């Protein structure tokens, strides 16, 4: 990727932003007198602040980069992550689940599980959640450092450590409050930083109508941009539901049932309703109404974000197809070691004037990825005739790569449209999205560690000052663990899919446990614990038995059948389809296991103990006297109706 030079104004904007996020941490320092102020923000924050923090914590760098990537790869179907995979779950959280989380006075999601079931369930959940937050923040740390390295030529290790250090500094000083407050600032930064790109790219391409026209042609010929190997109906990139009748008809390789149940129900509810990273924001709100309004306020921007993060990816595909000003989708970069192997083969072929067919397979093996045959033939011919310089040859080889680097689409658009000044703003927005995500993970991790693992099992009955100290110490330890995960993440390819996989393993069965726990007083601790274990084991087994098209057995699945020397049980059209179906199976197994085991085991908690924890044993919250916008049920219905209309508009 071609690097860009920053002007003084870009640095000034970056600096101003950094100064303010750190400044907020320091301004809040004097309020951090107890562990609950540090880890739970003292439950004093107004709803609009927790609401925007709720959505900013979710809008990490992975989301911004990954969704632009999905927009290019799958078109408008990527919006399902928002309109199907988020809004209904967020409304459910606000209306039905927040009363238990907030009302039970649990300090975290695992602690709710302890109150409702027993210690084992809490322990299992807090450990798996802790590992997951560290992995997520490690992956996003890696992505950010890698982007800054490619774009600005900054040192990878330096970017990694400095950006992690900034987050640690303000969380260390101001705890959850400073994470939430900076997330609000970051929310506005992300919106203002990316909005000009959306405006300029739409103007450049010639409006939405031109985008749909061009994408219809792309669907008929996706090979030309290396998007897919088969042709699709013309609406494949521009309709959310119309191309979902069969997995063959859309680039995501999904059918409507797998999507609605796998993503819309299991994964979405598992993420939004049980993930402490987001729930923690709502739990920090000042009262019950504010806590319930938090996800609803967050749902409004969430509904509109596809325009900000998915649209640029779709426009990028249209621009590349039109070849406007020579625009191409970013290609997977060739490693220096790959060049070292490729060069002698090209030299040899050029010297012998060999046909491209004779060396093509060797070149692909050396590159480690498919190459465009015509481009390779042309560059060998040109080299044989005129001897290209080494630099030219490298550029031509990179250009011949036939695999898109979707994760760079957002950056390519920033670079294409933003002049110095706004480029600094756009980069700051990227940095802000990364920091909001990482701070979310770090604050969730330190609360879980301090309250659910350290206080519960390692050192109970210590003074509050001791737990405050531990909360601070683990902020640093958590960041170090994230950095370690970042170096691990350097190994893997498509990041979004990997995160989805992890969510599938951990989150998918979890929602079944919560459903039983919150709405069925008969569910027992044995049922929940073994159901959860069974669900997670099902995830692993499913992943070990199935594979998706174009992938080798291993990290991508089918490792078990590979080990046994057998064929995968089923091969899905895409990794995403595999992940969604994995979630469906894990959820169902956990649901049934919990149900059956609960029925055959004795209840350990009395009705009295379950008051405030289970729906049927908790007094209803009446809010009929309130104005309409303070009634979560009503607001939720309005939001769902708007969401349904949007789905129909882009059908």
């Amino acid at each position, binding site marked *: 990727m071609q690097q860009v030079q920053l002007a003084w*104004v870009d640095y000034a*904007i970056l600096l101003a932003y950094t100064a303010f996020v750190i400044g907020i941490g320091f301004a809040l320092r004097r309020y951090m007198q107890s562990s609950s102020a540090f880890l739970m923000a003292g439950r*004093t924050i107004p709803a609009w602040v927790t609401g925007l923090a709720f959505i900013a914590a979710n809008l990490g760098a992975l989301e911004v980069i990954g969704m632009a990537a999905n927009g290019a790869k799958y078109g408008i179907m990527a919006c399902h992550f928002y309109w199907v995979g988020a809004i209904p779950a967020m409304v459910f959280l606000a209306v039905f689940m927040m009363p238990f989380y907030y009302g039970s006075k649990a300090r975290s999601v695992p602690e709710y599980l302890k109150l409702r079931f027993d210690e084992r369930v809490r322990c299992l959940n807090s450990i798996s959640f802790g590992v997951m937050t560290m992995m997520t923040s490690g992956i996003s740390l890696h992505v950010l450092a890698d982007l800054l390295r490619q774009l600005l030529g900054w040192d990878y290790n330096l970017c990694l450590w400095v950006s992690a250090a900034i987050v640690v500094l303000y969380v260390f000083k101001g705890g959850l409050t400073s994470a939430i*407050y900076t997330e609000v600032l970051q929310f506005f930064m992300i919106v203002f930083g990316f909005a*000009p790109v959306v405006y*300029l790219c739409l103007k450049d391409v010639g409006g939405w109508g031109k985008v749909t026209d061009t994408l219809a042609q792309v669907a008929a010929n996706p090979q030309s941009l290396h998007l897919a190997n088969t042709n699709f109906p013309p609406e494949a990139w521009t309709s959310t539901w119309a191309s979902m009748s069969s997995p063959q008809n859309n680039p995501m390789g999904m059918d409507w049932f797998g999507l609605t149940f796998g993503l819309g129900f299991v994964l979405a509810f598992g993420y939004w309703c049980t993930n402490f990273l987001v729930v923690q924001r709502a739990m920090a709100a000042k009262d019950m109404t504010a806590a319930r309004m938090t996800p609803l306020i967050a749902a409004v921007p969430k509904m509109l974000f596809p325009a900000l993060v998915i649209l640029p990816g779709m426009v990028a595909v249209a621009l590349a197809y039109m070849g406007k000003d020579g625009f191409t989708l970013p290609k997977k970069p060739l490693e220096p070691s790959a060049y070292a192997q490729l060069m002698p083969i090209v030299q040899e072929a050029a010297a012998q004037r060999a046909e491209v067919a004779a060396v093509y397979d060797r070149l692909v093996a050396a590159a480690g990825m498919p190459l465009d045959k015509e481009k390779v033939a042309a560059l060998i011919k040109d080299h044989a005739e005129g001897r290209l310089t080494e630099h030219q040859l490298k550029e031509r080889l990179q250009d011949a790569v036939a695999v898109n680097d979707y994760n760079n689409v957002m950056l390519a658009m920033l670079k294409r449209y*933003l*002049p110095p*000044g*706004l480029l600094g703003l756009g980069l700051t927005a990227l940095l802000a999205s990364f920091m909001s995500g990482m701070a979310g993970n770090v604050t969730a991790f330190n609360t879980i560690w301090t309250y659910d693992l350290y206080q519960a099992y390692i050192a109970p009955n210590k003074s509050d000052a001791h737990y405050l100290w531990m909360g601070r110490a683990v902020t640093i330890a958590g960041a170090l663990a994230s950095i370690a995960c970042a170096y691990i993440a350097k190994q893997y390819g498509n990041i979004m899919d990997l995160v989805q996989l992890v969510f599938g393993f951990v989150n998918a069965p979890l929602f079944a446990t919560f459903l039983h726990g919150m709405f069925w007083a008969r569910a027992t601790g044995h049922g929940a614990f073994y159901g959860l274990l069974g669900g997670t084991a099902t995830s692993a087994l499913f992943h070990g038995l199935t594979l998706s098209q174009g992938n080798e057995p291993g990290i991508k699945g089918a490792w078990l059948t590979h080990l046994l020397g057998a064929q995968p049980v089923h091969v899905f059209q895409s990794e995403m389809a595999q992940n969604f179906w994995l979630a469906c199976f894990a959820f169902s197994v956990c649901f049934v296991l919990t149900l059956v085991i609960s029925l055959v085991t004795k209840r350990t908690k009395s009705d009295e103990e379950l008051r405030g924890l289970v729906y049927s044993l908790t007094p209803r919250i009446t809010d009929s006297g309130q104005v309409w916008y303070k009634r979560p049920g009503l607001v939720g219905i309005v939001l769902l109706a708007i969401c349904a209309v949007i789905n129909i508009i882009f059908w």
Partner: protein
Amino acid sequence: MGLDIRYPIGIMFAIVGALLVVFGLITSGEAELYRRSLGININLWWGLLLLAFGLLMLFLAWRARAKLQSATPEQQQN
């Protein structure tokens, strides 16, 4: 918590907006620089918008504080 987040947000966006406006004014007429943004001096316009947003946030924070201060004496009477 004793900090109204609208103050830092307001001040930061006012500063960033002002920076962009100044940069936009200095570089106005440099066609080569704004070729990327389709010939629009986007720094100037977007800077103005951010400046306005920052000032709005400051105004809201200031109004909330004024309201709180005028409300406090009455509560003391009660």
